[in-house]
């Protein structure tokens, strides 16, 4: 069915969307001998949402960067509203009305939300910054996004999801007529995603066009009018409608059939490894949470952003303080004063943000894996670079990391970076492994590899806890699912009870 070559056959529905606003013709980009973009052509109409899919490295970012003026194409041309368009800088693109919302946050943490929204174009009155007007307009945008927070709040105090929404609010004030959203929902929970989609819908009706990049394929049918798929720098498929089965999209992205996404999990043992009793956070982020995870069992934690999931697992891993309650591993109650305490008791955490909490990006893969694992590398009190390299190389092979021990961590793709963090955590030989959002911002193929790793940990007899905002992931990967809402355990679902509907019902309770 609808796998078609480049040219679009216009359906009556899409021709109603209006005239072509952006056309891209035969655009290529080469770096030396490496071609990252080959002869890409497509059109975007006014008021249309086009989903752009592809694995990491397929060329989506390069294409977006060319449209947004960050990268100059080697060949080809573009037309914007009928005029030739060749932006040399991002501000050329912005002035023409094209904006790119990055996957990575580009906010200034020490400035307020309002200042971040208006940075570079602060409203002034008689030469001075008009704070009143700035806060009023920022507040207006935040309200439009349903974000209940003062525009005077410094961005550094916001969680990842709220920071993302500030980025979007910023774009909304730009009066852009064309927006590229790069993974806008990667950090959002269900409710925030719905709000974002309402916004896109509204702007679309005002005639704004979108390129929507996402790894969450379930979203595509909800938000996009059309889908284009890239692979290895080429446009390989062009679906006239977004109502395409997810399996077809995945097939187009990876170039072959994917029979299943989640690995098979053997039944867990009945030997409880970790027991959490009436745990409450010192900062009030979660209250009275209890659960048990057995050896060989995978427990998912679902919930909307702000439900206290990350705070809960960080506390269990000793990273944040606990007020009351207890955590036992293998029947022994443990003290949790620092991450070192938790690790000594056999709890390992793969944190939420691999770039800020998981990796020293400037250091080598070898040093990143060795960090905190020196007692496993050698029984002596000193260690040689060769021993570190050998230790890391073993872990690199075990986890299928595409890189060498001497390569720096920031040269790797997100999926491989995530595997480095997992490799370090597992090298410590833990009994309990906690993974917080292990596949955020990671492409489909690499996700499967991470799922396989998680299943393998359970098979080896570890108790595994996976926090994820991706509902299908939580359901597909876990024996049971703990649902959190407003800092409380809303129930643990397993087997036939664990359905999307049941989880969402409790998550929004």
């Amino acid at each position, binding site marked *: 069915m609808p796998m078609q070559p480049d040219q679009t056959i216009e359906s009556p529905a899409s021709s109603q969307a209006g005239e072509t606003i952006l056309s891209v013709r035969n655009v290529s980009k080469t770096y030396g001998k490496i071609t990252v973009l080959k002869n890409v052509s497509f059109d975007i109409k006014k008021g249309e949402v086009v989903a752009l899919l592809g*694995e*990491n*490295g397929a060329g989506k970012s390069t294409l977006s960067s060319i449209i947004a003026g960050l990268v100059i194409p080697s060949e080809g041309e573009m037309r914007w509203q009928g005029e030739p368009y060749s932006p040399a800088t991002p501000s050329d693109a912005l002035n023409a009305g094209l904006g790119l919302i990055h996957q990575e946050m580009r906010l200034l943490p020490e400035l307020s939300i309002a200042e971040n929204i208006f940075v570079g174009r602060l409203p002034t009155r008689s030469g001075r910054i008009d704070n009143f007007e700035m806060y009023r307009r920022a507040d207006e945008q935040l309200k439009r996004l349903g974000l209940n927070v003062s525009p005077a709040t410094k961005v550094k105090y916001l969680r990842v999801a709220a920071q993302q929404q500030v980025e979007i609010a910023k774009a909304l004030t730009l009066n852009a007529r064309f927006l590229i959203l790069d993974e806008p929902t990667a950090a959002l929970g269900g409710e925030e995603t719905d709000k974002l989609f309402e916004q896109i819908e509204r702007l679309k009706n005002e005639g704004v066009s979108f390129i929507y990049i996402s790894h969450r394929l379930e979203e595509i049918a909800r938000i996009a009018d059309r889908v284009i798929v890239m692979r290895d720098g080429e446009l390989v498929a062009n679906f006239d409608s977004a109502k395409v089965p997810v399996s077809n999209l995945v097939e187009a992205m*990876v170039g072959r059939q*994917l*029979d*299943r996404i989640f*690995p098979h999990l053997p039944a867990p043992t009945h030997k409880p490894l970790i027991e959490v009793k009436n745990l409450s956070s010192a900062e009030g982020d979660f209250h009275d949470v209890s659960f048990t995870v057995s050896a060989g069992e995978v427990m998912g934690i679902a919930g909307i952003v702000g439900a206290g999931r990350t705070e809960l697992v960080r506390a269990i*891993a000793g*990273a944040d303080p606990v007020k009351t309650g207890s955590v036992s591993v293998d029947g022994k109650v443990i003290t949790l004063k*620092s*991450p*070192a305490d938790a*690790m*000594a008791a056999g709890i390992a*955490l793969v*944190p939420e943000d691999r770039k*800020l*909490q*998981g*990796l*020293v*990006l*400037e*250091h*080598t893969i070898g*040093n990143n894996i*060795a*960090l*905190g694992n*020196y*007692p496993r590398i050698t029984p002596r*009190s*000193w*260690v*040689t*670079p060769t021993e570190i390299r050998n230790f890391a190389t073993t872990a690199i092979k075990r986890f299928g990391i*595409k*890189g*060498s021990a*001497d*390569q720096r961590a920031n*040269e*790797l*793709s997100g*999926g*491989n970076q995530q595997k480095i963090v997992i490799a*370090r955590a597992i090298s*410590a030989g833990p009994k309990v492994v906690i993974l917080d959002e292990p596949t955020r911002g990671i492409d*489909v*193929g*690499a996700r*499967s*590899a991470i*799922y*396989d790793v998680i299943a393998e940990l359970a098979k080896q007899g570890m108790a595994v806890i996976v926090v994820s905002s991706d509902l299908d992931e939580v359901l597909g990967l876990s024996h049971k699912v703990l649902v959190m809402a407003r800092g409380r355990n809303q129930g643990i679902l397993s087997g036939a009870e664990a359905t999307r509907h049941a989880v969402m019902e409790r998550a929004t309770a």
Partner: protein
Amino acid sequence: MSEITEQVTPKTGGINMSFVKKMSGPLVGLILLCVFFSLTSEFFLSARNGLNILDQVTVLGILAIGMTLVIVIGGIDLSVGSVLAFSMMMMGVMQRQLGLPLELAIVVGIATGAICGLVSGLLITVAKLPAFIATLAVMSVTRGLANILTEGKQIVGYPDWFTSLATVRQFGFLSLTVATFIVLAIIAAIILKYRPSGRNLFAIGGNPEVARLAGINVNLNTCVVYALSGALAGLAAVAFAARLDSSQPSAGLGYELDTIAAVVIGGASLSGGVGSISGTVIGVFIIGVLRNGLNLLGVSPFIQQVLIGVVIAAAVTFDTLGRKRR
């Protein structure tokens, strides 16, 4: 399933190449300086002058070892020059005014430095002050205390065996203070490279939150590093007092900046996570050779200041450019 190939950045070379590139900049600079002064001054290239340079850089070198540890963890220690003066005065007061045996007074001097460093460490980890502010405060306090002890007067009259530590070349070769510097540099280099506790410092400087979540006690390590930096300032004070044959409350004025310059010329990054003792030693010698050579050529101290500033800027520029190109 999931044998999906991902694009991996092609990468050749690896750690050995990057090591050579990182080291070659400062080392080449030092060699060029030596060649230049050998050609322009008839006195420069001699064993005697070489040993002179070693004597002259000892105090700076001992301070720079501690500063390297501090900069590797992403910190800065502005107090080392003043802590040096305070430790020196404590030692003098203990021996000359309270009549303690000099051996014990030396221990008190080093301990004074360690305590001052520990105070900086606690201000940073417990009071959560930025390192710059914490050590700036300690710098001011200790310089004041150094002057209060004797109302600004110097202390003279150390026994001969003490001054001979810095002046008598054992076996016609190294004075004990120079030997101490060399031994300390080797120990510090080994710790930083081969001891887990040393390697952890790079992780703390690279990203303290990552280090903490990996099970490293970041606060404890930070306190230990600043205490070591202080203790080394105390030891540098002993070496300096032996060379001056006195204790001066104004000693070490501005040394913190020379020390930071030496460490940075040696390739360390002020944002933390990068640095080495071998680089720092080269940085120390670049400053030492530059001063010595310019003195031999009779260049005025004012012009020397200008040239040293230019060298710092040039060294770090080349290093940064080289790192970007990698």
